[in-house]
Each structure stands twice: as C-alpha cells, then as structure tokens.
C-alpha cells in the first residue's frame, strides 16, 4: 500500500476520484432539488410560474425585473406575442450572442412558454398573443391575394418562396418553412429582430390571414416542375447545370472519344 502511495500516478488518481465523487454528489443533489422547485411552480398562478421560470432562465441577461442589462434589452412593453414567438421558435433563450438569433429546438414547452409570456406582459403593455380565431382566419382567406401581398411585403427579404435571404452584416431573413400560422402572425405584429412591425393599419387582419394562407401553400412544397433545388433562384440551377449537366456530358464525351482498340 505504501508502495502504491508513492507511485507517481497516485496523486492524479486520487484527484480524479475526488472529482468524480463531487460531480456524482452534485448531480444527485440537483436531481433532488429540481423537481421540488417545479412542484412549487405548478401550484401557483400562471404569472407566478412564469416569474419563477423568468428568474431562472431569462433574468441573467434581461434583468430580474426585465429592465434589461448590457447583455439583453429591456422587456417592458414587448408584449406576450413577442415572448411567445421568441420562446416557441427556440430563439430565446439564445445559445450565443451573434449577428442574429437562430431558430432552434424550443427549451420550454407550450405551458411554460405561456407562463413566461404572461409574466413578461406584466412589465408593460404590448401586443397580446393573437387568439385562435384570429389565427385560424387564414383557412378562409384568399390564396391569390395572399400571394400578391406576400410578394409585395415579404418577398424582398424572405425571397419569393419564403426560403429566406441575406440581410446586412450576417443578419438574415429566415426561411418560413418551419413557421406555424401563430408564429407568422406574432412575427408580423411584433417585428422580431430586423423585421418591421406590420400593424393592423399597414396590413389588416384579413391581409395577415391571406399572407399566412399563402405561406401555408408554399410550405406544402408541391413542385410542378420537379426538384425545387431549394427555391433560391438561378444560383442552384447554375450549379446543377455545371456539375450534373455539363459534368455528365463531358463524361459521355470522354467515353465516346475514347479510342476503340
């Protein structure tokens, strides 16, 4: 034993053992504590539950009262719609600061998202989450009118098929392929990131519904012409032409031009 103690690897081994113990212990304590906190939350009202989630997941950057810090803007007056949009698309809480926050898998479920929205809405008046009737109006809207409105108001950034497009300095208009009708509606009334706000005076609720209808149609991904190549215009067409088209013709030419022996 004494011989082992003086081994030159002994101290390293002991260190790893201690570290392992600490981490196992920490995980265990964490497991014990977390469900308790969640249990307390479920017994409270929506706003209080949101308050707890806010303090845990948002306050580091937005401040304990949503007043904002050097790392995040104030949330006073952003409204429940903005919160629901940002959190349900996974943009908040954000993974890393950058030119633009990316869409990712949401960190909160729908109930938690609604609780957060309810809590943040108390910071100041802002647009509320649109009602189910408001959103579902798109099913009765005009498709052709939606297309016309989409091309006039949306295509300049999101591209003709909602595939997204580049903005300045690494910012971009995202693809609309994953956006739900509710999220599209919320984006229009809250103007997330670089997007302008389309108030009811700019785009009436009927127009908004028509636009949502058109985006739903686009997202069905029906391509009468064949493979759509990402619907980004002639750049990918040119790529296919040079690589697949001309590439295969040159292979054929080499085959034909090969000397017959």
């Amino acid at each position: 034993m004494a011989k082992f103690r003086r081994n030159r690897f002994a101290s390293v081994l002991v260190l790893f053992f201690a570290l392992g113990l600490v981490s196992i212990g920490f995980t265990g304590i964490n497991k014990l504590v977390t469900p308790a906190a969640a249990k307390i939350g479920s017994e409270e009202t929506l706003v209080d539950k949101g308050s707890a989630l806010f303090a845990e997941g948002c306050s580091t950057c937005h401040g304990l009262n949503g007043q904002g810090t050097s790392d995040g803007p104030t949330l006073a007056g952003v409204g429940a719609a903005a919160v629901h949009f940002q959190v349900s698309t996974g943009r908040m809480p954000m993974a890393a600061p950058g030119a633009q926050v990316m869409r990712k898998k949401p960190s909160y479920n729908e109930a938690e998202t609604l609780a957060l929205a309810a809590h943040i809405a108390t910071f100041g008046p802002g647009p509320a989450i649109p009602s189910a009737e408001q959103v579902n109006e798109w099913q009765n809207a005009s498709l052709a009118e939606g297309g016309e409105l989409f091309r006039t108001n949306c295509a300049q950034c999101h591209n003709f098929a909602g595939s997204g497009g580049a903005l300045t300095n690494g910012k971009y208009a995202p693809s609309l392929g994953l956006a739900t009708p509710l999220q599209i509606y919320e984006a229009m009334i809250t103007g997330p990131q670089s997007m302008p706000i389309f108030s009811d005076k700019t785009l009436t609720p009927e127009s908004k519904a028509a636009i949502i209808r058109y985006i739903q149609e686009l997202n069905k991904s029906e391509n009468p012409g064949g493979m759509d190549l990402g619907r980004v215009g002639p750049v990918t067409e040119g790529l296919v032409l040079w690589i697949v088209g001309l590439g295969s013709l040159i292979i054929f030419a080499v085959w034909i031009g090969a000397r017959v022996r």
Partner: protein
Amino acid sequence: MSNTTTSKKTPAAYNYVDSRVGFSAALKRNLRKVFPDHWSFMLGEIALYSFIILLLTGTFLTLWYKPSMTEVIYNGSYIPLKGIPMSEAYASTLEISFDVRGGMLLRQIHHWAALFFIAAMVVHLLRVFFTGAFRKPREFNWLLGLALLTLGLLAGFSGYSLPDDLLSGIGLKIASGIIQAIPVIGTWALYFLFGGEFPGTEIIPRLYSIHILLIPGAILALVTAHLLLVWTQKHTQYPGPGRTEKNVVGYPLLPVYTAKAGGFFFIVFGVTTLLGALVAINPIWLYGPFTPDQVTAGSQPDWYIGFLEGSLRVMPAIEFNIFNTWTFSPNILIPALILPGLMFVLMGAYPFIESWITGDKREHNLLDRPRNAPTRTALGTMSLTFYILLWIGGGNDIIATTFNLSINSITYFMRVALIALPPLVFIATKRICLGLQRKDLEMLLHGKETGRILRLPDGGFVEVHQPVSEAELPKLLARETYPVWELPQKVDANGIKTPHYHRQMLKARISAWWTKGDLPIPSAKEIQAGQHHAYEALEQASEFGVKPGKEEIVSATNH
C-alpha cells in the same frame, strides 16, 4: 477501296438520287474527310446540339406564347395566381406550363438547353484557348466563336425576360439602369429601346422579335461560317505518333464520326430532357407576375450573366452629381459596361497580341499542350479566376445564408480577392507548367523512373529506367521555345535613331517576361543519349547475369 466496291454494286436508289441531285463526287470526297479523335473536340458539339434542341423546343413554345404586355386577369388552372392581373406574356407562359400538354417539359428543356448552349461554348472556348487552337490560321474562327458567345448571351437574356415574371422583370430593371448609366445618351438610349419609360408596353414584343428571329438567324449564319472554316482549315490535333502540321490523323466522317456525333446528339438531348423532366428551372409561377413595386430576395440572373451581377455587387458605390444636374454613375458604368467590353475586346485581340509577342507567324495545326505555353496557360487561369470570383460575388447573398457568413464581409473579401488572387494564380500556374516541363525533360534525358532498384554483385545499386515509348515520344518532343527580342539601341553605330524605338523596347520587355523560365529544348543527340541511358542499368546488370523483366525486353527490342 470503298470506291471500287460501290461502283461495282451501285444501288438503284443511289443512282436515282444522284442522277437528280448530282454531287455524289463531292459528297464522296467529303464524307471520307478525316477528323482527329479526342473527347475535348466534342465540347463545341454540345453547343451545336443544344442549339438544335433550342430551335426545336423554341418553335413549340412560340405556338402558345403571346408576346404582349396587355394586362389580363389570370383564369387558368394554377390556383395561387387565380384572379391576379398580369401581362398576357406571363399568363401565356403559365398556360404553357400548366395547361398545354407537355408544355412544362418543353419549357424546362428549352431553358436547360439554353444554359447548356452557353456553358458548352465557354468550355469549348477554354479548350481552344489553352491548347492554342486560335493561332494562325484560325484567328478569324476564334473571333467568330466570340461573336457566337456574345449572341448566345443576348439570346439567353432576351429569352429569360420574355415570361415577364418578377425575377426577369427585376433583371430588365437592372438592364434599364445600366443603359441609363451610359454617359450623355443613356436616357435617350433607354427611351429608344423601351419605347418610353421602364417598363412600358413595348419591351416584351421587341425582345420577342429579337429572340426568335434576329439572334437565332445570326447564330445560324455564324455557326455555318464557323463550321465551314473548320472544314476548310481542317481540325487541329494533339501531338502524337505520325501527326504533323501537314496531316490529320483520325477517322473518316462516314461512318465513324456520323455515328459518334449522331449518338452524341441523342445523349445531349437525353441529358437535357432528363433535367427538364426531373429538375424545376425558372419556376415563374412562384416568382409571380412582374410589377415594378415588388422585388424578391435572392434576385439573380441565369449563370451566364452571373459575372456581371457579381461585378455590379462588388463595385464600390461611386456616383457623382455634375453641377447638381447630371448624374454620372461609375458604379454602374465600370462594372456593367466597361468591364464586359474590356473582357471581350481582350479575348478578341488575344491571338494577335500573342503572335506579336512571340513573333510567331507560322501556321499551327498541331495543338499546344497547356504546359508547353506556360505564360498563356497562366494568363488563362488568371482570367478564369477573375471570372469565377465574379460569379461568387454575384451569388454573395446565397453564399451568405448558406454558410452563415456576413454578406458585407464577402463583398469586401471579393474586392481584395479580385485584384490579389489572379496574379497569385498566374504565378502558381506558371510554376506548375514549368515543373511539368521539367518532368517531361527528365523523361527525355533519363527515361521513365521505374522504381526498380537492382543490386549488383559488386555491391553497387542501379535504378532501372524505362525508355519513353514510341507513342509518348512525339508528345514530349512537341515543345517549342520562342526568341526573346533584343533590347533596341536608341541610336545605332552611325548615330541614326532607331525607328519605333519605344514600341521595340516594349516588345523586347514583354517577350523577356513571356519567355522567362523557359527550359532549353534538348538536342536530338542529347535525347538519344538520354534514351540510351535508360538501358545502362540493365546492361550493367546483364553483365552480371541478371535477367531483364518482360517490359524491359519489349522496350529493348524497340530500341
């Protein structure tokens, strides 16, 4: 041989036709015309076949297309556009796509074939350039080819604009801006072309006449002239056994090339049809009809205008107001008019510039291997780099979103890269070419390294070198060097001024730069010695009783 057999047994049908048409003698002679064989000689054919496909499918499209900007309300079968006001041109293109049987397929084949047409012309041009096929006597055919390329670009752009969809309308808007940027006459030129302000009601019918009548007619005429010249001047060939400047080694047109070329036509048609059937191109129904108040992100031209899109996007925004009255826009003028003008003028002048530098006025029917003309090859790759960088600049928004980059950084990078990268590529290419030349020289002077080391009984090691085969030898011997012009004296011995002193000085300097690093051509004696050297190891080995391998026996008998 074939003459005697046909005269013995002439079919009745043959006599029937010949007695009425009567140029069987000329035909017989020409059908036996020999063409050299190489895959790279078929690139121009792709362009020719694409053009035939374009004529066929284009004719089909004219049956339904209406070249009119009269506004109509769409009532066809594409639901998302039902009830939308649009031009008749756009509505009829939708009709072709959705309501005409086979219309979508033929429209897409037509568009793919157009992309093929110009792409094939470009690769054909590159082949001709890098192998020096533009040299005397083929300078005019090089110019004809450039004219065809220009016409191809115009055909493409005019056709792309015809559906009057949002994307092509944006393209026309850019074109109108470019026309306006011409100093002094810009505005008048625009009114002249568009019959008034942009977009007006005239441009589509005008482009239609140009697209289906003027340009195809001109292309047809020039293609005929291009091929006639190939016919009379005979095709160039790569250096090889038995090939000289005075002969053509290959196969006769009938039956070998009629079969090969005919088959290749169907392959080109097949690939184009497959693409047309499987891959959507120019989905105008998604773009929507053109109205001047709409624009879409990712507005791009087809690939062949991409270099102009790139030059426009990369150009810094420099614009002047002269006396607050006239706008002068170098930011459009330079990238969209001066740059392409310069590119085509330089390409057209190139054969003449090169022969001026090298002083080479001989006829050339044997092609250069790119490595054997290092400066030309380097100039080619340098220009190609510039062109490809412009492409990337034109797609900067798609690249930005695809690779999560900032569009601004791409643009700044391009501004530097367009100036810095081509010279670097020039230097690298020249070094690579000279390296390959050195390798060739090595083969001539020492034979091929086999990697086979023999240990001699006295302890010495020798590597077996294999002499260059008869088939390879002409290829390695094909290199030529060009003289360096001597620096002229300002005043000769008698005190008389040298005429055209500065021009001669320039020529001397350029030719010194042109031939810099050229390797000496080995003499016949040196080569013979070198090829013999290849056997030394074997001879040495056989003295000690080592048996040569199978390959070595073959080359030894050749020797």
